[in-house]
């Protein structure tokens, strides 16, 4: 009975902490809503229009792959690029002194950064899917299973994003690192194309990154729905989520003691 009450109390405290930290992050979005809206609209629309100009007479399947690839790319970028850059920026702006001196959990800080990233990325994903359907008549497969797969895809990359941000020696270095990773993930991993289309060595390297499983699961969900392949990828992503949590709790430090 006592332990149930304690768990309830801890849960309630963690929820309060999470919601307050989210409100602080939301204030940053509220403060820059024009830029956020512009970025969320301009990026998907310009991507789709340039694809229409470049691949106007291509096959329906290639368009499906490109649109799904861009949606997956946006989700993956949010998972570690936006998270890593944001945490790094906050670290070098001296924000950690405020947060780390409060009795709050580091994981809640990371989660609210991720939620903030989702707030700024989700609109562009939705616009990409809707405009893709309108411009190219690409019919994507929507079902409830997309929500857990989407969350697993983002959460499986939180460890990488948090590591990039917390260990950043300076913001310039972080920026260079994520640019390099974007190049790698964009062109050398199975995000924008099928795994089988890549050279064997890159296929093997791809197995080490959660992005590969996130891309496969999301692509499959958006084109065919929940299949056995999605289940396998979701399971691997779950392992990456567990590893990310362990990594953030045990390895990453923002106070001296951790």
């Amino acid at each position: 009975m006592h332990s149930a009450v304690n768990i309830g109390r801890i849960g309630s405290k963690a929820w309060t902490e999470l919601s307050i930290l989210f409100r602080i992050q939301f204030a940053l979005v509220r403060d820059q809503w024009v830029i956020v809206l512009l970025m969320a609209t301009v990026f998907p629309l310009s991507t789709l229009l340039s694809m229409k100009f470049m691949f106007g007479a291509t096959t329906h399947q290639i368009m499906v792959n490109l649109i799904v690839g861009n949606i997956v790319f946006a989700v993956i970028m949010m998972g570690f690029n936006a998270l890593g850059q944001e945490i790094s920026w906050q670290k070098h702006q001296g924000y950690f002194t405020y947060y780390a001196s409060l009795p709050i959990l580091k994981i809640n800080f990371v989660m609210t950064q991720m939620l903030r990233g989702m707030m700024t990325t989700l609109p562009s994903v939705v616009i990409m899917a809707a405009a893709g359907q309108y411009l190219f008549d690409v019919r994507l497969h929507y079902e409830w299973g997309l929500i857990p797969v989407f969350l697993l895809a983002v959460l499986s990359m939180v460890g990488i994003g948090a590591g990039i941000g917390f260990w950043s020696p300076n913001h310039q270095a972080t920026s260079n690192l994520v640019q390099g990773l974007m190049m790698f993930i964009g062109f050398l991993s199975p995000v924008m194309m099928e795994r089988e289309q890549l050279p064997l060595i890159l296929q093997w390297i791809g197995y080490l990154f959660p992005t590969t499983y996130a891309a496969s699961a999301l692509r499959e969900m958006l084109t065919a729905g929940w299949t056995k392949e999605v289940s396998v990828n979701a399971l691997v992503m779950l392992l990456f989520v567990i590893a990310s949590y362990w990594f953030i709790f045990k390895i990453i430090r923002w106070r001296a003691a951790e």
Partner: protein
Amino acid sequence: MNLLEIDRISKAYKKGKSPANIDISFSIREGEIIGLLGPNGAGKSTLVKQIVGLLAPSSGEIRYRGVNVLKQQRRVSTEISYYAQEPHALGALTAGEALLYTGILRGMPRREAELQTRELLERFNMGDLINRRIKKMSGGQRRMIGMGTTLIGNAPVLVFDEPTNELDPLNRKLVWDLIVEHNRRGATIVLVTHNVLEAERVVDRVAFINHGRLLEIDSVAQLKQRVDGRLKLDLTAAYGEVERLIGRLEGWGDIQRTGEHRVRVYVSKERAGRLLDWMIHDESLPIDEYAVYPPSLEDVYVYIDERKAGIAHA
């Protein structure tokens, strides 16, 4: 009772670079106001960041209520509130949100946090700015909000790093008053400042730190006794005559040039009468103005720093 024990703390940020703290040991008693005084770059801020657990010492240990601060981070961050100067992280929030959210994150019930937010803003004469974004405030107002985020929640230990920097005289006075009030309600205060004159009014004990080392720690009264028997004379030399004045004063005491035309002399009480008598009657002395003061905490600091530097050079 000792609340915090700083036990042989040394801190070096990088190998090969001069350490920020070298073998510092002292205790902080429950309910006192202790000032860590010293010039910029002395190692004071590094020390307090270790006290609040934001930095780990290279060697040594800091104990809070008998337990290493690094082994009870949650308790330390709950019971020790640290003033991190401007609240950079909260720039997008309004003043009211910043204080309210910080209070809740410190564990206060929402209603209580709302009440204290209003009280603090009223106290800062910023009640009408409750809905103003922090980043649209002046530097001084932002620092007062930073002060509010430290005070909200009434933590038993408050650590302030240069709390009056960039504040106008009225707000400086308000900050010192608030520090004293919180101490009277039972809070232990650790105060980092290089503003020795202002700190003298509020601190119970002083730890002088320079070049990473603890030079001296004692009560203000005890420290002043170290230089008791000395008086301070501030002299303004006639135009272009400061070098000649210094030459003529040699042998009377410790002489410092404090400005283009200004000279300070520390002289023993026994000799002070004779010196003043000579200054008044010898019209060949190139002095435009003079003033005599009893020793202040700043003089104690200068005296101790010079003595320690002398010992180090010897």
